[in-house]
């Protein structure tokens, strides 16, 4: 978990286009730790199968989501917030 790979999508400027790929940023765990508990933050745990079930460390309050199922979670969570996906 030291090198927590986090994909961050800033949904403030969310427009459902592939051009968004350029805005995808990586976040270090320390940065995410500072954001935890803030109102507009949604953390998505996109690990699946045994990657998820055999890991003891799970971010408190994180929602499980299928990382590939972009349309579902993009619709589900507020578009004016900060959405953080973690997969390792």
């Amino acid at each position, binding site marked *: *978990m*030291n090198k927590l790979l986090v994909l961050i999508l800033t949904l403030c400027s969310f427009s459902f286009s592939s051009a968004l790929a350029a805005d995808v940023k990586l976040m270090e765990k320390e940065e995410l730790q500072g954001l935890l508990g803030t109102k507009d933050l949604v953390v998505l745990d996109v*690990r699946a*199968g045994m990657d998820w*079930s*055999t890991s*003891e460390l799970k971010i408190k309050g994180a929602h499980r989501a299928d990382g590939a199922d972009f349309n579902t979670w993009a619709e589900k969570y507020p578009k004016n917030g900060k959405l953080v996906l973690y997969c390792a």
Partner: protein
Amino acid sequence: MSWASTIPVTIALCWMLTPEVMVRLGNGVGEGGLFFLALIAGAALVSGLVVIVIRQPGLQTGHGYEPTAVLLRGLGRRPAAILTAGRTSLAVLLPAGLLVSAGYAFNEVFVHWFPNFGFSFILLAGIVLLHLAGERTAQTMQPVFVTTALGCLFLLLPAGLADWRSAATAPETVQTSLTLSTALSPLLLFLGYDGPSSDNRDQRRPALVAIAIGALLFLALGLVALHTVAAARLAESTLPHMLVAREIAGQPGRLLMGGAVIAGVAGAVNGLFLMTGRSLADLAGHGLLPAVAGRPVMMRVYPVLFAGLIGVCLMTGLAGHEILEDLIEAALLLWLAHVAGLCFAVGRIAKKSDRPTTLPPLLASGLGLLVLSFCLLLAFTHDQVLVTICFCGAIPALVLPFSAIWPAKPPEIPQNSGRNSNP
């Protein structure tokens, strides 16, 4: 007890000490409480009875105990090939899942900066190296892995039992409902007693000792789990054993459980490679595979092949798909079907035999029917019943065409067909 005589016991224990079994135990205890522990005791008795039936000294050949030979004598070529092939699938699927668990345990409990998949591959490579050094080396290391896992668990237990005496620490018990698939699962926890052995001594004893150790461990861990963590949390957790270890002893508890997980996985992968390699050599020895598959050098080649397939599974991201868990479940059911097949085979051998046998043929067939019923019920109560049926159906679909084109005349059993004289 000599080191060599512990080898068959520790091979039979290889699956019982895996994190996969710990999860099933923790979830089961959370769902069913003491009733689940009673089911475990019942499953231990049934497994013990199965051992007495399928490992009778009269069934041993000059090469020790060969399940393939028993299946062949009792059921014929095709069922023997299908049942053995079904169990062989476990040597790839189960280690793939278990190595993921070991990788996470190492990364999250011991060395945070070390990549979990990196550790999974290192562990796999280490076990392959043992097998490349020779079957004897791999066998000699098996008690090391198993006693390390047992040692970690038995160091944790006294602390848990001490907590148990204090009523103040007992969690609030919320009764959860026991599902049918969980209630049927204890029979799966004791698998491992049907493996081949080159020892010509009575092969019932090591398997019975393994079942007794497993039963005592499960009952003690189950009782401690129930008295340290709330039942609902145990039932829902994906890692109930880590939860219990943390509740019992905090960080030292996590370290001990992490050690048990890694050593248990090493023992399981090593044990499965040993059992499966020997089964494939036995298949070749009885003409169900080309003779080349039974050559001694193949006992070094099989682990490399298994490791290659496991590596492909891991690198293609199979661990990150729900289907891996479903395939493991299906492979475990095929293992149980192999046990049922052995019981039926023994029943038929006893019926055909002119000599009076100590055990009535009906007992063997009845046990086979019981195990097969559990197997079918588990298959049809599984969430992904279609995956289970497709996977189980794929094995005969692959094996039958091969057995149809393979010459019916069994070749002579090659001398020293991948076997050595120990343990």
